[in-house]
């Protein structure tokens, strides 16, 4: 296929191609090297990818665009999926490593100065074909971008498409790719059908907030922020429609990862863990997962009860007002009406607090539960890499044994041909074994780095959000004091 003719890509997606070119000139990292490494196996690679994914039972989302029909955008540099292609050039990871350091340097200098906001949800279209478009605004001083401030419009499937690309490129080599927000057929249907009620507004807000957090986590990653797909997502005004997102949703990817994990377990791999660090960390993440889930459940209960409290307070306020009206003693009647007003304000407070409980505390925990699943997935990828290496070793051994047998055999004419063949095969498998070992070492190294980074981020993230949450609680108490102090003289005025 015409993948080498990348720069004159299909008429339906001119921008990405030109962007690609610009990227290449702007920095000397990834994309350029990618250009060199593209080879003909690319098609097979993608065919493989789509096949694998479609084995999952995807949630069908109607595909509406007139966009390009290729399943995955042709712009993605593919070389990073190193172990799927038989690489003709060794050392893609190490080249990549260099670029990582470079970005981190820049990042250190700029304090990773980038901020993304997702805003202005706008309904586009009507009925079941409708969708929500979100405005994605980036403010940054990083030089990998063309401008310092810019916006684009994106829909939910675009986000899923981005995630699927990143996941397919980076997860199997050990990078923790932040998971995309979950799909929700029920929630989205309500919005499409035009139910302008509270629950659909809340749903859109919940999604908007989740998308914003997702992008921020993605761009905070020093490797991911450089990825041309990420840059294109943020900058390019037109994005080729991510068509296979029904299969490649966040949940779909996670399912893929989990399936891989299950497969790994079923293979009864008894991995000789030479590195205690990995064992320890896996156990830690397992515990953390459990505790976070429990905490998340407790906070969800809190949100629920706080909402109930708000509703019951409002109901009491109304009742108190009626009582005040019925009261024939003038001063007491006034005081009861005032009480009703206070309780009404307090009900608002409770509602606001419930929002804070949810958007700050509960969603943080939910995000981390999903992130940890991604972390666990990465550990499983390492095991898969290890097992592939082991398999190669086993194969090599078999070939060597076969060779030895040939040498002992006594059929001179067929022998030479067979010997040559076997020799070729042995060379091939030796190469695979070496590659397998390198891959394993690389992924182990990457994971160590990623986990270190993850833990630092986690601490920062929690601290920032928890402080914000506590400040919301402080605010609620301050307001309570205000309201009751205003009511007190009214109560004292009853005579």
């Amino acid at each position, binding site marked *: 296929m015409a993948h080498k003719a990348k720069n004159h890509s299909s008429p339906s997606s001119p921008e990405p191609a030109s962007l690609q070119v610009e990227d290449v000139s702007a920095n000397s990292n990834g994309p350029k090297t990618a250009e060199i490494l593209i080879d003909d196996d690319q098609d097979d690679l993608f065919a493989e990818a789509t096949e694998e994914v479609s084995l999952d039972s995807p949630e069908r989302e109607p595909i509406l665009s007139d966009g390009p029909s290729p399943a995955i955008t042709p712009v993605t540099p593919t070389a990073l999926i190193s172990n799927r292609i038989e690489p003709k050039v060794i050392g893609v990871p190490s080249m990549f490593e260099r670029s990582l350091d470079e970005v981190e340097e820049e990042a250190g200098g700029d304090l990773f100065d980038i901020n993304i906001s997702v805003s202005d949800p706008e309904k586009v279209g009507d009925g079941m074909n409708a969708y929500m478009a979100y405005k994605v605004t980036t403010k940054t001083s990083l030089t990998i971008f063309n401008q310092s401030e810019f916006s684009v419009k994106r829909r939910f499937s675009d986000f899923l498409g981005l995630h699927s690309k990143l996941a397919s490129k980076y997860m199997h080599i050990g990078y923790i790719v932040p998971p995309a927000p979950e799909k929700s057929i029920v929630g989205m249907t309500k919005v499409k059908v035009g139910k302008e009620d509270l629950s659909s507004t809340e749903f859109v807000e919940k999604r908007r907030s989740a998308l914003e957090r997702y992008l921020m986590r993605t761009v905070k990653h020093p490797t991911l922020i450089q990825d041309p797909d990420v840059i294109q997502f943020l900058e390019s005004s037109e994005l080729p429609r991510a068509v296979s997102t029904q299969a490649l949703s966040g949940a779909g990817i996670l399912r893929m990862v989990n399936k891989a994990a299950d497969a790994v377990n079923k293979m009864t791999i008894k991995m000789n863990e030479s590195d205690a660090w990995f064992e320890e960390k896996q156990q830690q993440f397992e515990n953390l997962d459990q505790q976070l889930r429990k*905490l998340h459940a407790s906070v969800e209960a809190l949100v629920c009860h706080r909402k*109930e409290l708000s509703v019951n307070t409002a109901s009491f306020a109304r009742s108190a007002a009626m009582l005040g009206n*019925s009261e*024939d*003693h003038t001063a007491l009647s006034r005081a009861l009406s005032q009480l009703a007003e206070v309780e009404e304000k307090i009900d608002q407070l409770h509602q606001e607090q419930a929002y804070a409980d949810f958007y700050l505390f509960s969603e943080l925990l939910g995000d981390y539960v999903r992130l940890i699943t991604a972390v666990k997935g990465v550990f499983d990828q390492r095991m898969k890499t290890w097992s592939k290496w082991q398999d190669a070793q086993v194969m090599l051994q078999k070939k060597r044994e076969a060779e030895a047998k040939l040498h002992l055999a006594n059929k001179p004419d067929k022998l030479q041909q067979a010997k040559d063949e076997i020799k070729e095969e042995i060379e091939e498998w030796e190469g695979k074994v070496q590659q397998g070992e390198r891959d394993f070492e690389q992924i182990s190294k990457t994971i160590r780095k990623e986990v270190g980074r993850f833990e630092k981020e*986690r601490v920062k993230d929690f601290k920032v959000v928890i402080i914000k949450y*506590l400040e919301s609680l402080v605010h609620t108490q301050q307001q309570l004091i205000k309201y009751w102090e205003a009511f007190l003289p009214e109560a004292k005025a009853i*005579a």
Partner: protein
Amino acid sequence: MSSSFLPLSEEMFQARSVSVDLNNDASLLIDIPDALCERDKVKFTVHTKTTLGTFQKPEFSVSRQHEDFIWLHDTLVETEEYAGLIIPPAPPKPDFESPREKMHKLGEGEASMTKEEYAKMKQELEAEYLAVFKKTVQVHEIFLQRLSSHPVFSKDRNFQIFLEYDQDLSVRRKNAKEMFGGFFKNMVKTADEVLISGTKEVDEFFDQEKTFLLDYFSKIKDATSKAEKMTRSHKNVADDYIHVSATLNSLSAEDSTPLKHLEKLADLFEKLRKVEGRVASDQELKLTELLRYYMRDIQAAKDLLYRRARALADYENANKALDKARLKSKDVAQAQQHQQQCLQKFDTLSESGKKELTSFKGRRVLAFRKNLIEMAELEIKHAKSNMALLQGCVELLKSN
């Protein structure tokens, strides 16, 4: 809950008085200094201090059960002479159903919690038991104090027996049931509203009172149930803080990475939930209990109106009977006498009823004032504690 003697603390003394103007008269002072909880039965120690000569001793105590209070109330209701008075509402039966149910559920869910979490929930439930207990003591005490501070009831013979008789009252109770059979009480229960609203009211005062009381009763009943729901939600939030705190504790214990602030956060939530728990229980005592009590009191006022309406109906019937007798020229004198009696009864009822209802309003307004002020003050106090706790934690986290 097994038997336990619960000396009532200073706090409890302050927490009392949903009603006011009680126990002011030094000639007869009544209180319930302690109570015993034996399985389902609560035994109250009723302590009396008096300067009145009608009692045998100046100071004495007896042990009484809830049923004894009900007996006393019923005898008062059945007493014709008291028809023109608002009989203080009977204290409701001690109800430990809610905390007991929660304790049961807690037992079932024990496996899913950490030891600490379970201990804290249990502690919380025991506090709830205690709160129910305190409430029931309060409401029984107020009943007696209403009687002791009333010029007529304080002299009631059965009331004296209740206070003084140092033996078990259960024998007397059984006799009383046989005697009265709860006749009047049952009558009052049926269709009182219909009768009250049905009769034409000539007297302006009673007309207004009738309209007011009927409407007010339904409003206060609604307010009481809404306040109950609100308080329960508050308790649920406080309980959730326990779970959050417990899980944060487990997290910080297991986490080797420097998430030390999780420990502080766990501690914070533990302290917060105590304050929230107090907010809920104070709201219950000052608001919900207040509404609940006056709902019952207004029912008692309505009962008075009912009795008066009955007396009026009796009088009207007597009038009709007199007219009939005059027509037939038979038993006129008898009919006339009966008519006079009914009229007198009705007039006495109206007179004392007016007095009672007026003083009732005064009492009610004062009680509301007192409790609303106290509730507002407590809310402010608790919100300030919460704020101090929260701000302290935020400072700590920011400084790290």
